[in-house]
């Protein structure tokens, strides 16, 4: 794999950072990242990961863009209202960087499809908004030995961690052995 001249120019500020360099930029280009959720967390995630040159980004979301999403789901614009979020986010990412391959997984992420989706990626991002999806993402990532980058928000607080039991770290169930009663934790 090589960068063409346009890409070298595009990523030049990365290429001159010793911590990234040509080898690092090629690693970024080779990487395949799955994003579960194309909403509040998914918007900045997708836009930045696309801009920095992640080679392949998978987008999972079942929802369509709603007017009430726009004040925080910044990848979606007023013109995107009613469109599937994966399509809207795809267009935003590609407008920023056409070198990214986007795979759309429009629909729910659940026990029936999670392994088939996750297996084609190196890193899994959890930007979902509910406990069933979070437990499902955790278990799928564990069984397929993929790092799971967890992010969750509530009101004015956020939580981020990386679950990588195959690297000796904890998993989501180590942090939260059982789900809370429905309604006890607003999302």
């Amino acid at each position: 794999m090589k960068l063409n001249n346009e890409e070298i120019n595009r990523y030049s500020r990365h290429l001159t950072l010793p911590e990234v360099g040509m080898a690092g930029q090629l690693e970024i280009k080779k990487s395949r990242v799955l994003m579960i959720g194309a909403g509040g967390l998914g918007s900045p995630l997708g836009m930045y990961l696309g801009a920095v040159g992640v080679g392949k980004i998978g987008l999972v979301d079942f929802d369509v863009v709603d007017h009430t999403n726009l004040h925080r789901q910044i990848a979606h614009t007023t013109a995107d209202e009613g469109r599937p979020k994966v399509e809207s986010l795809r267009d935003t990412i590609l407008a920023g960087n056409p070198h990214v391959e986007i795979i759309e997984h429009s629909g729910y992420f659940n026990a029936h499809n999670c392994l088939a989706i996750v297996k084609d990626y190196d890193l899994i991002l959890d930007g979902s908004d509910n406990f069933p999806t979070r437990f499902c993402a955790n278990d799928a990532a564990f069984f397929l030995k993929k790092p799971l980058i967890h992010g969750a928000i509530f009101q004015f607080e956020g939580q981020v961690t990386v679950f990588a039991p195959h690297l000796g770290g904890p998993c989501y169930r180590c942090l939260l052995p059982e789900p809370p009663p429905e309604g006890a934790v607003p999302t």
Partner: protein
Amino acid sequence: MGVVIEIPSALKKYVNNQDEVEVQGNSVEEAFDSLCKDFAELKPNLFDENGKVRNFINVYLNDDDIRYAEGMNSSVQDGDCIQIVPSIAGGR
């Protein structure tokens, strides 16, 4: 000086909107007893009907989970910090 208990935003309304409350006690349990005595409404939001900390709330003593010390019996001293961290799931 006592033990500081940090309150997450979801529970602040039960402690007069304070970010943290200073209490006295020699164990996590005593510190929580003291907290719930001052703020009775907090108790059912922190503990289940069997008196156990609700399963979606983790308690950290000086940044480590009390499950890996002696749980609620973990001893505390002046200057220690107990942090209450409920799990959250939002992403939208």
